[in-house]
């Protein structure tokens, strides 16, 4: 998948990120000026002829008054921005995200229960959503730089973040708190959709998986149910109801496999199923040795068909 700068705080995709970006520009410019000033003064002093200095003027003026004024102004600005970004929790969370080693479980509250998916959030453009953040194991940190600052997921607590996007698009996020072996591969995507598309998508997510459309896909589903897959994974609408691994009900519609390790598609799914420990050592999924090549292709195709 073509990515580009979709994980960048310098390319804000939301009002919140834009506010921080604007604050950042002031910081970069102001710091640059101070740096140039200090270095120029030091170099001039170092290489020019000795001269008398007024001790008080240098120390009180340069060391106290100057930083005090600049920092007081900065603090007021920072408080203003911080206040704007940390309003009180408006309502019950729209989405729950649970950090796990090393993937993200995402649950939407829908009218008829939960839509559960992994490593991917979709949000309606222009509508701020409240997300509840928690963890199943160690500390993680939820961060989509283009949309908002990061918030940690800490055992025993539930933190909150508000995420909103100004325009349709794909944004990438990544765990920012070191969480062990595969911390580097704990990414996710946030897809911003127009409101109607979002509703339609959510309705599909809430629905059970489609029945296999042909014999080959049926063979794939049989393989899924026959092998150990169902012990850890759920596919709503089938007998598979495991909870250790990601819910796969609509896995075929997702942008990546393995929380950023692979892209989407049947080939990626097959590669992952064949040897997940090679692609992402230490994750909970064992390699599948008992599948024939044909069964593996059928299984991958079946999963790919679950849009």
């Amino acid at each position, binding site marked *: 998948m073509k990515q580009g700068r979709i994980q960048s705080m310098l390319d804000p995709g939301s009002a919140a990120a834009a506010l921080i970006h604007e604050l950042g520009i002031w910081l970069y410019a102001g710091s640059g000026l101070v740096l140039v000033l200090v270095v120029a003064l030091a170099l001039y*002093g170092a290489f020019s002829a000795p001269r008398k200095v007024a001790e008080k003027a240098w120390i009180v003026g340069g060391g106290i008054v*100057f930083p005090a004024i600049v920092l007081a102004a900065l*603090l007021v600005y*920072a408080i203003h921005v*911080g206040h704007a970004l940390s309003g009180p929790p408006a309502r019950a969370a729209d989405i729950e995200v649970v950090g796990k080693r090393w993937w993200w479980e995402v649950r939407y509250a829908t009218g008829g229960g939960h839509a559960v998916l992994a490593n991917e959030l979709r949000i309606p453009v222009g509508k701020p959503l409240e997300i509840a953040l928690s963890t199943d194991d160690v500390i993680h940190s939820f961060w989509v*730089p283009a949309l908002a600052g990061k918030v940690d997921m800490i055992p025993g*607590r539930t933190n909150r973040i508000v995420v909103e996007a100004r325009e349709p698009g794909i944004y990438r996020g990544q765990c920012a708190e070191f969480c062990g072996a595969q911390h*580097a591969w704990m990414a996710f995507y946030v897809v911003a959709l127009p409101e109607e598309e979002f509703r339609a998508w959510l309705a599909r997510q809430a629905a059970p998986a489609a029945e296999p459309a042909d014999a080959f896909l049926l063979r794939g589903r049989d393989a899924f149910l026959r092998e150990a897959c169902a012990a850890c994974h759920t596919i709503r609408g089938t007998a598979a109801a495991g909870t250790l691994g990601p819910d796969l009900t609509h896995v075929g519609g997702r942008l990546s496999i393995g929380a950023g390790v692979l892209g989407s598609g049947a080939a990626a799914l097959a590669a992952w199923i064949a040897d997940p420990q090679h692609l992402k050592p230490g994750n909970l999924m064992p390699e599948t040795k008992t599948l024939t090549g044909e069964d593996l292709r059928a299984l991958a195709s079946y999963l790919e068909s679950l849009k």
Partner: protein
Amino acid sequence: MKKEHLPNSLPRPPDEFEALKRAWARPKGWRFFTAVNNTTIGMLYVGTALLFFVLAGILALIMRTQLAVPNNDLVGYQTYNQLFTMHGTIMMFLFAVPVIEALGVYLLPGMIAARDLPFPRLGAYAYWAYAIGGLIFFGTLFFNAAPDGGWFMYPPLTGSEYTPSNSADWWLLGIGFIEISAIAGAIELIVGILRTRAPGMSLGKMPIYAWAMLVVGGMIVFGFPPVILATLLMELERAFDWPFFIAAKGGDPVLWQHLFWLFGHPEVYIIFLPAAGMVSMMLPVMCRTPIVGYRWVVGALVGVGVLSFGLWAHHMFTTGMPHLSATLFSAASMAVAIPTGIQIFAWIATLWRGKMQREGPSWFLLAFIGVFTLGGLTGIMLAVVPFNWQVHDTHFVVAHLHYVLIGGMVFPLFAALYYWAPLVSGRKLSEAMARWGCGLMFVGLNVAFFPMHITGMLGMPRRVHTYAEGLGWEDLNMVSTVGAYVFAAGVLVVLADLALHLRLGGKVDANVWGAGTLEWLPLDSYGSRSIPQVRGRDPLWDHPALAREVDSGQHYLPGTATGGRETIVTSPIDARAQYLLVVPGPSWLPLIAGAGTAAFFLLLTVKMVAAAIIGGMVALAAMLKWMWQTDRGVTHPPVDIGGGITLPVYASGPVSHSWWAMVVLMVVDATVFASLVFSYCYLGTNAADTWPPAGVNLPGLAWPAAAALAWLASSALFGLARRRLDSPAVFRAALLAAIALMLAAFGTDLYGQWQAGLRADDHAYGAIVYTVLAWQGFHVAVLFVMAAYTLARSWCGLLDATRRVTFDNTRLFWHYMAGQGIAGIVLVHALPRWLG
């Protein structure tokens, strides 16, 4: 007392100088390992710290090579996670803190014209524990057994559930001896600076570096205790399942973060302030003018030291803390810019007023000002809460901290190597290599770390062993890697210069920079031949003949008065001579005790408990043996040190240097206890349900009341013993009864909880209550040894109404512990009743 004028130009007795040299002779051959003198230990210490700098630097180069291209598989995640954990841990604990203490050990006595530090064996012990323990700790990398949870070791990742191997224990126990070593060093430096300055060197005339080290000593005393407690709690959790940080059992992983950063942020200034102090020494000399604003700079050092304890939570802005708290920490963090700004402008004004010599140290100092300023500015950015939410835990922070630490500490350190190397070998290092070294380091640092600001803003988190392609990070990472190698080349040039041009000399008489402070007097193992009367801040500038006068023995103590090693103890503020301290000479005991301490911690890590206990006993025995040789009493009548001053050779009570060391140690102890009280209150106030949890019964009030009374009585008995030092039978009976009461107090408190059914591994409540008890129990054991030792001295006739420092120290600690015992009882028994 008759007044004599210094210098005293009468000829010196012919054998006086020979006797001085004999007393301070450096041990030869194998006996080199018995050396305790500050210059020998200081050199070893600096050398070992630089070795760790190189080792940790090599780890960094491997990491940079791994990150040069995306999806790289040069090293796997297992190795990478060990690499960054060890890089951070070693740089902070085995390089930065030791090297600043090492330079202090080497430089301070010369600067304040003491012949040695007041506790040379303690200094040697601290060094050996560090060197042996540190090298073994590093060795775990070769067995793929090194810690891999980050130098910040956040639980629950580092708890036994997610790190079942003992790699985390290596970190916890490995850090244990570094903590001991740092505390020992701090006591040595504080007492040395406050009590062994040359006569006349009042606080207002003290070199700024001594001020910086005094502040840093104080910061170690208050800053290390939280991490001592934190490592203790985590090890208890890992070894015995006491759940301090496990949310499901009433613990809270954020408690670790508070304790760690309560230490961790002052730690940064513990590293930076000595460097700033060195800059304030070197820059004026290189510019041939006194520093502009001495008083302002001293005030700024103290200000940074104090403020640094109020900023820790700016490492925790993303934990979901209320915006108001975050704002307070943000403002405090920004406030540090003011004392730092004072220093920077004082340095710039000094550059303006003087004429900078274009030589080795100057280049590193100029590089320091530029690099450190940028690091400080990105630090202010990080203190801005909303901005921090974005860049926290990204490569932006990696860039920031390296600008601050390399800029603020490594460049001044390298300037110091060039500036003070002539103290060792009598001549300057190579100017050409200084320029190449500094140039490569400056360019390399900026090429390596400046791009990381941007990589971080483009979304690259820290501590990732690799990264996906296509996110715009590839080129920046490649540039950073190239820069890292350029920086390493610069370091190599400087180290090569040291290897080629640094020669250990005997006596050195080479004030090569024309400096004004006393470390540039002609020096040998005994320090300066005689100890000058100090009249100004830059004695060698104020009085150019001073070096010759001192070197021909015309000032105080031109020889050895008792035939042994001596230094003058002066009053802490105005430096009036008070008594002559006879300092111990070479001994195997510090090495044995250091090796025993390292063995204790390291063997405990690999669960070889019996062997560990043997190591601990060896260490304890060696320490007791060396202590037995101290507190010698009045061995000599008062001695004439010249200038009309006659000094006693023994002192007790608040005049004694030993009393000061004991008080500093008790402050450390009280700060650990305060951290424990903080932890108890934190867990109690953040508890999800009631405190104590449902189903837990507090013992009846009779238990704590009896325990508190026993503590009071025990303490009172020591008060009685103090008045009956002259009647050994009563004295010994009082001590024996005090021991019995202390054991009764502790036993009552402990049994009270046990019989009420409390267990340490059920819930964080039980865990923290038993930790308060365990902390008391540890002290009861220490006090038991101290009291037995004091009794033994009494039985051997080594203790009486005059020769009483041993008893005074035990008594001080006893009273303190009675207070701590009662405070613990109030905390554990009254607070929950009050909260409930």
